[in-house]
């Protein structure tokens, strides 16, 4: 495949998508938090029931 030993290629085929998936999870988590925070800030302020 790419000149590396066969066992190392098998390990790479498992570890590389796991690593990319984990980075995506962190990235999407941060993006989602920002999106929710932005939506909260854009919305109406909570009703103040105190007199």
């Amino acid at each position, binding site marked *: 495949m*790419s000149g590396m030993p066969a066992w190392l290629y098998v390990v*790479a085929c498992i570890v590389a998508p796991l690593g990319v998936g984990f980075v995506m999870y962190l990235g999407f988590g941060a993006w989602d938090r920002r999106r929710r925070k932005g939506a909260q800030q854009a919305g109406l302020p909570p009703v103040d029931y105190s007199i």
Partner: protein
Amino acid sequence: MWSLTVAGSQVPILGIAALGTAVGYVAGMFGIGGGFLMTPLLIVIFRIPLPIAIGSGLCQIIGTSLVSFLRHRRVGQGEPRFDLLMIPGSLLGVELGARTLAGLANAGNLELGDGSIPWVSLVVETGYMVMLLVVAIQYWRHASQPSDSFQFLRSGPLARVRFGPRIDLPASGLTGVSALVIAYIGLGLGFLSGLLGIGGGVALNPVLLYGFGFPIRQAVGTGIVVLLATALLGTGVHAAAGNVHLGLSLVLLAGGGISAQFGALASKRMSGAALARVHAIVIVAAIGAVAWDLVKHLV
């Protein structure tokens, strides 16, 4: 033009990324991995050899299923007992599926009139079409029912099978479900993964929703651990057989992982019935693509 060399042929990276993006969007919309679309489209559009399309498709599913697993674990969706019972059978099924694929790949061609078709293409692609047709019919049939029955199906036919030891599934509100039925579903799902290179979400979701009567939120979260386990084992088995192209898998993963998030957001604006109907239409389109590939072998 950037390209990858896959089995001696040049495949454009941008084309692969575009396919990954399109499939990822659809997969995110329906809460599945998208392997049922990815593998046949790699074969039909880019003429990638079937074993490599299957192995590389499974490899990219590792990344997408890890993201799903971590997200669902955080919100506590799914039925852990169901997952645990499926795992042993599914791991055995992956090995069986991969061996069957290897046997078919060495079985030569079937001569039909003027044309010939490799046995592996005939069996795998026919298997795809039958499985997808059954799933599409299930989605379409249930989308046509009143919304109440679509959302609140309880205790489906598989949940009423009284065979072998039985367990309760508290997260789904089901009691006395046959553990053997769940284990055999795991075996069948693993076999499909090893043979067809799909995660199996497209087959498992209707089984959970309509076969057992899972609530939709629990159905979406169930099976992801199994999906991850089968993708890990399946990738290992296929990589050892030289069927995984890592570059191809990573390009698909990069495109699909991002667009799946937008697909998931888009699905929130659709009703359950409309989503099921669109799902059925997408599946029928995939069947058409596979059928076209089979016909091309013969003309």
